């Protein structure tokens, strides 16, 4: 007969195996939940979506090591070396931070988790571990992809002087450790922020504030990345007037940390390295405390209180339009935009990006404070064009993400007009929600300046440009906003947008310069306006020709029929 001790050991081993299995099952579920599966089309492939994102990071990583392939591993200048180190660390940190913001909703267990898991024999500890592991796995995967080439090639250029072969070997772990710690710092900060608000505010208020906080964090990270001032010389890093700014720029702290771990610490970087260690310890402690408190305090609250955002909603003051279908589509779109966190966040992302680019353009890239009047005019034109492109693109992108796919049946069973009428309604809604606000703000900005006759011409050009963009978006999206399923690999607008962003910025700058020359020559300005109007009309014709042919509304991407000739005759 087996002894009591042996039975206990065997039982413990079985318990451990069962807990391990539960952990793995939960981990997989939570990892998948980082992406909202409700958005995917029935034949949407999550693995494909993840691999698309990873391939983007791997491509970026490959491009970053091109200079290494051309011999840049032997960097002589300290400033140039710090610039590369700073760029790589800062990019990794920002990507990790952005992913932590995107996975905002999956940071803590929600009502669905609790309702499903509470009746099951799952320990809170296992749930906690699985959730936390999944939470760190997503940014981890992104950071690994982003540094897959850069993390192999660039450390060769960062070897500490006179450290010999050991220094060469040590550069790789030093680089990877820094990147992981720096990325972890932003993830910890996001968790601390979320946990702090979740613990301080009542749950319903937290749910309301959380959406705003998430969008604000997104804008903050983008702005920080694009607008961060450059301090890459020992003089700049030690200058007293720069110390205040450096105290608030985490990427420089981790630049110091990397050089400390790598054994190449310059005295100017020493205080920054110290700050990095303190910040890392504080943020990690904050994140751990937040998560623990969230599990101890929030879980009972989630069960007791409903996840209802508005406890008592009064009538909103949304505009009413006379025609019923455009009214229905516009108000539905506006309500979805204002009330859906996911849509609001993506919109905030594009607007934040636009703000950061505009601010960067005005403060430093092109226009200096002492710039001539003509440069300020060009900057205004640049910002106008950029704002129109980003707002219309943002609306187009969020429109392609559904709010509740299974509720779309009502639109289908109430379709009493041809698809063309719906397309006109969507056109109207996009003009009202995207083009009109941009024109409104531009008019406000223009009115605040001394009266200039060219402003009217520019605003009219912007109106025509906005119409042209809307028609282009309608051509690529012949559906009702927020009702079609998201099919990864087909809705590639994000990737196209990012791939061509730099090209776009150059084109926008050229257009702004071109328009600033045209504005003072009435005949040429008129011909530009005529050209824009013609392009918008041509695009509208194309869109309508497509809509006339379809009677029914589209909700899913229709596969094109492929006819393969067997060439038997």
């Amino acid at each position, binding site marked *: 007969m087996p002894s009591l001790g042996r039975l206990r050991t065997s039982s413990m081993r079985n318990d451990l195996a069962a807990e391990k299995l539960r952990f793995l099952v939960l981990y997989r579920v939570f990892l998948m939940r980082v992406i909202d599966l409700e958005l995917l089309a029935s034949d949407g492939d999550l693995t494909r979506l993840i691999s698309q994102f990873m391939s983007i990071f791997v491509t970026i990583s490959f491009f970053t090591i091109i200079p290494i392939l051309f011999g840049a591993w032997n960097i002589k200048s300290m400033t140039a070396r710090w610039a590369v180190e700073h760029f790589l660390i800062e990019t990794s940190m920002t990507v990790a931070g952005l992913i932590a913001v995107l996975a905002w909703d999956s940071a803590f267990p929600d009502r669905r988790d609790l309702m499903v898991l509470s009746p099951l024999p799952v320990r809170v500890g296992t749930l906690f571990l699985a959730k936390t592991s999944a939470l760190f796995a997503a940014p981890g995967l992104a950071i690994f992809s982003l540094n897959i080439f850069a993390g192999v090639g660039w450390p060769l250029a960062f070897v500490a002087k006179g450290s010999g072969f050991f220094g060469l070997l040590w550069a790789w772990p030093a680089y990877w450790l820094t990147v992981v710690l720096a990325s972890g710092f932003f993830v910890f900060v996001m968790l601390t922020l979320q946990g702090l608000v979740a613990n301080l505010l009542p749950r319903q208020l937290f749910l309301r504030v959380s959406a705003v906080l998430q969008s604000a964090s997104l804008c903050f990270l983008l702005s920080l990345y694009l607008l961060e001032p450059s301090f890459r010389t020992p003089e700049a890093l030690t200058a007293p007037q720069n110390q205040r700014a450096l105290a608030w720029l985490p990427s420089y702290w981790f630049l110091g940390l990397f050089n400390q771990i790598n054994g190449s610490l310059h005295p100017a970087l020493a205080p920054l390295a110290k700050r990095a260690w303190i910040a890392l310890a504080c943020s990690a402690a904050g994140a751990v405390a937040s998560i623990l408190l969230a599990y101890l305090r929030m879980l009972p609250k989630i069960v007791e209180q409903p996840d*209802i955002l508005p406890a008592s909603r009064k009538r909103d003051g949304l505009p009413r339009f006379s025609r019923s*279908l455009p009214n229905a589509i516009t108000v539905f779109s506006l309500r979805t935009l204002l009330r859906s966190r996911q849509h609001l966040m993506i919109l905030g992302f594009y607007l934040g990006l636009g703000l950061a680019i505009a601010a960067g353009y005005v403060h430093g890239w092109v226009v200096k404070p002492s710039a001539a009047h003509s440069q300020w005019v060009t900057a205004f034109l640049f910002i106008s064009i950029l704002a129109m492109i980003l707002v219309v693109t943002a609306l187009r992108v969020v429109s392609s993400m559904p709010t509740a796919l299974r509720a779309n049946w009502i639109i289908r*069973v109430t*379709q009493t007009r041809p698809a063309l009428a719906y397309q006109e309604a969507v056109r109207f809604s996009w003009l009202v929600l995207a083009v009109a606000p941009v024109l409104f703000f531009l008019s406000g900005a223009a009115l605040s300046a001394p009266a200039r006759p060219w402003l009217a011409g520019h605003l009219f050009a912007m109106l025509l440009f906005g119409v042209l963009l809307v028609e282009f978006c309608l051509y690529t999206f012949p559906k009702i906003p927020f009702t079609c399923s998201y099919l990864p690999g087909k809705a590639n607008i994000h990737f196209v947008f990012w791939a061509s962003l730099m090209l776009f910025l150059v084109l926008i700058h050229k257009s702004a310069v071109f328009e600033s020359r045209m504005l003072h020559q009435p005949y040429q300005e008129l011909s530009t306006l005529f050209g824009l109007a013609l392009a918008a009309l041509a695009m509208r014709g194309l869109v309508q020709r497509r809509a006339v042919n379809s009677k029914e509304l589209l909700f899913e991407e229709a596969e094109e029929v492929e006819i393969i000739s067997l060439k038997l005759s």
Partner: protein
Amino acid sequence: MLELRNLNKLYSSIPAVSDVSFVARPGEITGYLGANGSGKSTTMRIVTGLIEPTSGEVLFEGNPTRRDPMVYRQRMGYVPEEPHLYTHLSGLEYLVMVAQLRDMRPKTAAARIHGLLRLFGLHGDRDLSISSYSKGMRQKILLSAALMHNPDLVLLDEPFSGLDVASALVLRSLIQELARRGKVVLFSSHELETVERICSHIVILHKGKVVADDSIANLRSLMELSTLEGIFSQLVVDQDPDAVSREIADLIYA
């Protein structure tokens, strides 16, 4: 009159409904019965136009519904099996949106929406988000959306789901009243007692095929059974319920 003619629907070559034909007449309530997975909801979705049949056709007042689906949809009201709604909207906002999509006159729509909300006891909660509604409240919103344009054809797929006793009694009476006023009512349910009480005509579906299509009285006399439950059990239930329940109990004790 609603007529289903030789409807077939295949999902990846698996038949969901096979050769389904029956007629639902104005002024009568047609009960559509069947076990889970028998093809009831598939038939309902074909009738609404949400899915296309593999073959066969649906005729309303003698015209194929596919000939002019816009006109047909204007005359149809549908309550689906599951209360899928845009939960970020309030009950009132949802109904206003449906009225606008149906191109109803604003004054008529406002009067009917507020009236329906009041009669269904939802007026006080009209500005709350649908995400906070109970299943019964959502069901009432669906019923309001299906009836507010005064349709000639009313398709009800499990309309009693989630309703409290008082609301269920109102709905039962409402269905009878709509039929009395000459509407075509096709009503699918698992509640045999309710079906027996209000339906004049029964269609029973089993494994995608129609196994009975007659009045309850005729079915009773033909099958020499006194209740609809008995008729249903004989036509549809393949297993002995007592034997299955014993097997389940044995299984969980094993």
